[in-house]
């Protein structure tokens, strides 16, 4: 065996330190949040819409839905779910095509930034804005319409996991659907009708069980209906579970459907995501 003693290779240049992976993701998240907050349309559309809706609906329907439970108690669940879907699904489905079209994504791809950091930045933005928006919505409803907040830790826990699973599913689907838009402008045209139809059939604007059965069945395929149902178990008394289509709030099924949509979303993202526009090769 021969041993060759090599002179110690001098470290090529004193390489400075790049922020670690976690720090990179946080920086990316901060940048995304800054961009979001500075874009007036995003703030008004995403943050303002659910609040405007609750102001209108709670003012029109100020009665009760039986058992002394205020209509606000029912309606807030749809608004929270819609808000979470807007900040994740619609927000990403509209903005990613714009960024792709402008070449922002292409520019990121030309840097040593790990790909996942970009996705992490989007997720951090969605989570932060989603929390802020939900808190604002609850504050408005409590202050103006006497909303009763969940009274037990178990209910808050349900609120937490339904929101997290729902946002995750909607975020992944938003990233996936962004690849359907061919140009910057078409993102909104692809996403908005989907979101609007889901809102109408999932019990956001109407009491879900008042809808035609076939409509309820279509809605049951998509996540929004299950997010609303999960949230109803948080904001309505236990006894109201009997009025749900399944005879209870079916929290197990809520979890299963939302997790399934997360899986579908991941698969779609991995198979369809594009960093550049079609004309860009």
């Amino acid at each position, binding site marked *: 065996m021969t041993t060759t003693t090599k002179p110690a290779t001098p470290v090529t240049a004193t390489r400075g330190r790049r922020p670690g992976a976690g720090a990179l993701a946080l920086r990316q998240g901060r940048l995304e949040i*800054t961009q979001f907050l500075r874009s007036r349309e995003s703030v008004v559309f995403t943050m303002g819409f659910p609040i405007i809706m609750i102001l209108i609906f709670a003012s029109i329907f100020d009665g009760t839905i039986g058992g002394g439970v205020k209509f606000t108690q029912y309606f807030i669940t749809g608004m929270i779910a819609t808000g979470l879907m807007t900040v994740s699904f619609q927000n990403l489905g509209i903005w990613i095509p714009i960024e792709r079209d*402008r070449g922002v994504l292409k*520019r*990121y791809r030309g840097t040593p930034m790990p790909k996942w950091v970009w996705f992490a930045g989007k997720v951090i933005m969605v989570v932060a804005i989603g929390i802020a928006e939900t808190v604002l919505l609850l504050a408005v409803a409590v202050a103006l319409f006497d909303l009763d907040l969940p009274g037990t830790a178990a209910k808050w826990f349900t609120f937490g996991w339904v929101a997290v699973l729902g946002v995750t599913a909607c975020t992944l689907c938003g990233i996936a659907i962004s690849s359907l838009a061919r140009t910057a402008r078409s993102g909104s045209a692809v996403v908005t009708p989907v979101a609007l139809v889901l809102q109408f059939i999932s019990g956001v604007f109407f009491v879900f069980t008042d809808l035609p059965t076939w409509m309820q069945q279509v809605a049951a395929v998509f996540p929004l209906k299950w997010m609303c149902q999960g949230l109803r178990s948080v904001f309505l008394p236990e006894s109201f579970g009997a009025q749900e289509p399944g005879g209870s709030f079916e929290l197990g099924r809520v979890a299963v459907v939302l997790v399934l949509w997360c899986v579908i979303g991941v698969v779609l993202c991995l198979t369809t995501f594009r960093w550049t526009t079609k004309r860009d*090769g």
Partner: protein
Amino acid sequence: MDDELAISVRGLRKAYGDNVAVAGVDLDVHRGEVFALLGPNGAGKTTTVEILEGYRRRDAGEVTVLGVDPAQPDADWRTRVGIVLQGTGEFDELTVAEVIRHFSGFYPDADDPDKVIDRVGLTDKAKARTHTLSGGQKRRLDVALGIIGRPELLFLDEPTTGFDPEARREFWELIRDLAAAGTTIVLTTHYLDEAEALADRVGVIAGGRLVEVAAPNRLGNRQEALATVSWRTPEGTLESAQSATPTAFVADLAARYGGEVPGLTVTRPTLEDVYLTMIGHAR
């Protein structure tokens, strides 16, 4: 592999459907060189450069860029390559300084953001939102993002489009500085004066093929071409003659006129003349 080569390309081909964009390009770029790829729109410049940048897949051929196949770019390679794309990716809501600072975080040995802002001449605009910048200023931001990581190799795809003449001169100085510091530079342009001013060698690309590679003053045997001497006769008509020995010819003329020759010019084919002939042949 030849360590002296920053880029080595053999038999590169790329087609989009039936449209052959690059039809067999061979190319070497040496380390520390400024290489200009010159050609009309649709000649295959951007496709070639984007393959070298790791953005596009090639159909055939061997390509190494800084010793790595750009079809498999890794993070380390990305830190060594700076890219200024033709289309600019804009961050409308952010300021110049915010964007540059953010991108500096992607590189282990990034340059000082303030220094880079100064270098590209955007100090006055550092706090301006990028959507308020003029076309030329946006381009400078692109350049800043291309050099923030102190690349060994810098690609510039039509970097001075939209610049006013003064901004172009300043930009040329910046490129000369980078080149003097040892950065290898590959730029595409359709400005001939830019290629002539900056490049050590120019590759003329037309119809997806590299029709010639030479120093700008050697392109198309410009040096050896006949010179055109023209002058005015006392009657005011313009005369001209082709000559291989223009100095002797002018001395003769001077003797004939007994001193100053009215309206005297001596010209050789400009880079533009040579270039137009070349791409004309390729068509």
